[in-house]
């Protein structure tokens, strides 16, 4: 790994700590950047060097390309790892890093831009022979109406520059589509700087299944199988598992192969995630590609043994992937509970505050990714994710039993969290059977 010696971590919290660990294990020096609110965060002390980049508000710190690139140059970093969220999928950030003569740990700005335009990404998927949800790739309202008449209602109107579940409206019929379209376009222009919207058939009772891919600069592309991410509320994932219980074993390699084809088609480099919808007949359709490490990456690590962040760093250093496809096998099952500082009994209201008591679970197959310690403050300025409880077992039943026990052992006092919801969910028969889809959780919460 000679071309890299110092990595600047342009993120915070648990993912900053996750990246820092991988760097140190590979013998790389780390620099973390931090805002005023994160000044006393324990993970900051684990870095070889820490740079204050601005006030607590993310817009003036973790979202400031200028502050981060300046810090990277000042400390003599060779590479910048963006983590997830914040600037991780902004092509302009990757470009600014490259223009500063530094290595961006991720794909090229060009690929980020292509995949960031969801309508363009659909076109690329079709070119790679990957099925897409029937719909349009942009165009005016009349095209959308014509397409919707062909594919059938309900349809979703989506912002081309959106993603992560944001900028989406539903239409049950032509009137609703005609009503939703202009507003969606205007909202897209305001929120994402691009008024382009496209229309997709809404697949009911569909599953959200995604495939982890890894690619290097030597033309090697591998997959690390799939993840099931259908347990969502307002399109935000609450619990994920690997592999998906909905993907039939005989379809698993076909799905993974489609993801690899798309990654090859676009010249993808680094870790990426190809998201699909899986319908009730087991047919899958591409929806979007996330050009970064994913929050739920640890469940894939648990069932394959691949250290995804270490592979990202190897690839950034110009090395080949350290895994060949034939050596990556699926072993057992893993579950991730996203513990958010939100109150499930109060419509998931944000719950910042001080952690007065923290007791972590343990035992075989239990991994806790968090940057928090007892006494720390969960700040109001950032995402509500405070901990990822990742539990694996030799099969799904063992993973479920261990998750149930781990959730019982977990204590977080001082802020409301989603842990109580997870404790309920893990005992639901439908969850135990793996019998759920993307609308299931919202229905469950409304019961």
């Amino acid at each position, binding site marked *: 790994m000679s071309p890299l010696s110092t990595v600047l971590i342009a993120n915070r919290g648990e993912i900053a700590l996750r990246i820092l660990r991988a760097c140190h294990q590979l013998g790389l020096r780390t620099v973390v950047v931090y805002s005023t609110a994160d000044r006393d965060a324990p993970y900051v002390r684990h870095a070889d060097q820490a740079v204050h980049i601005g006030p607590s*508000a993310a817009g*003036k710190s973790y979202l400031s390309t200028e502050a981060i690139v300046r810090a990277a140059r000042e400390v003599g970093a060779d590479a910048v790892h963006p983590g997830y969220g914040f600037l991780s999928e902004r092509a302009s950030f990757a470009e600014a890093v490259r223009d500063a003569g530094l290595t961006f740990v991720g794909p090229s700005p060009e690929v980020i831009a292509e995949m960031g335009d969801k309508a363009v990404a659909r076109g690329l998927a079709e070119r790679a022979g990957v099925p897409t949800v029937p719909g349009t790739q942009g165009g005016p309202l009349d095209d959308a109406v014509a397409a919707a008449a062909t594919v059938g209602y309900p349809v979703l109107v989506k912002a081309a520059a959106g993603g992560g579940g944001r900028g989406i409206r539903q239409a049950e019929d032509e009137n609703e589509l005609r009503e939703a379209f202009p507003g969606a376009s205007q909202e897209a222009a305001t929120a994402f700087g691009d008024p382009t919207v496209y229309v997709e058939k809404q697949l009911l009772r569909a599953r959200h299944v995604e495939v982890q891919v890894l690619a290097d600069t030597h033309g090697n592309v591998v997959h690390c199988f799939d993840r099931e991410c259908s347990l969502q509320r307002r399109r935000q994932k609450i619990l994920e598992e690997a592999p998906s219980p909905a993907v039939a074993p005989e379809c698993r390699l076909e799905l993974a192969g489609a993801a690899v084809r798309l990654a090859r088609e676009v010249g993808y480099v680094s870790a990426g995630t190809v998201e699909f919808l899986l319908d009730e007949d087991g047919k899958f359709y591409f929806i979007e590609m996330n050009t970064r490490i994913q929050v739920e990456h640890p469940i894939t690590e648990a069932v394959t043994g691949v250290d995804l962040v270490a592979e990202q760093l190897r690839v950034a250093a110009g090395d080949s992937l350290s895994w060949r496809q034939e050596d990556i096998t699926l072993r057992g099952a893993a579950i991730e509970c996203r513990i958010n500082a939100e109150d499930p009994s109060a419509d998931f209201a944000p719950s910042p505050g001080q952690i007065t008591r923290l007791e972590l679970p343990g035992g075989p197959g239990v991994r806790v990714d968090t940057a928090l310690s007892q006494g720390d403050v969960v700040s109001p300025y950032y995402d509500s994710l405070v901990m990822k409880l990742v539990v694996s077992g030799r099969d799904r039943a063992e993973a479920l039993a261990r998750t149930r026990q781990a959730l019982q052992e977990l204590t977080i006092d001082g802020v409301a969290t989603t842990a109580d919801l997870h404790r309920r969910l893990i005992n639901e028969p439908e969850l135990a059977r793996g019998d759920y889809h993307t609308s299931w959780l919202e229905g469950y919460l409304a019961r």
Partner: protein
Amino acid sequence: MRTLKAPMPGVFYRRPSPGDPVFVEEGAPVEVGQTIGLIEVMKNFNQLKADAAGTVTRFLLEDEDEVMIGQDVVELEE
């Protein structure tokens, strides 16, 4: 005169989004329930509304300032 306090901690915004005009100028009249700013907490945007009709005399925070729970945000003349 009354002072409107922040009901939650976060980041205070005077505009719906960065390029837009402010919700309300200093010296302008407001109705009860009129939105005068936003407070972002953990990526959720909450509207801060006038609790009485009157005139906005002055903002005690700048756009995009950090705000603590209970902190004075704006002065209203009834």
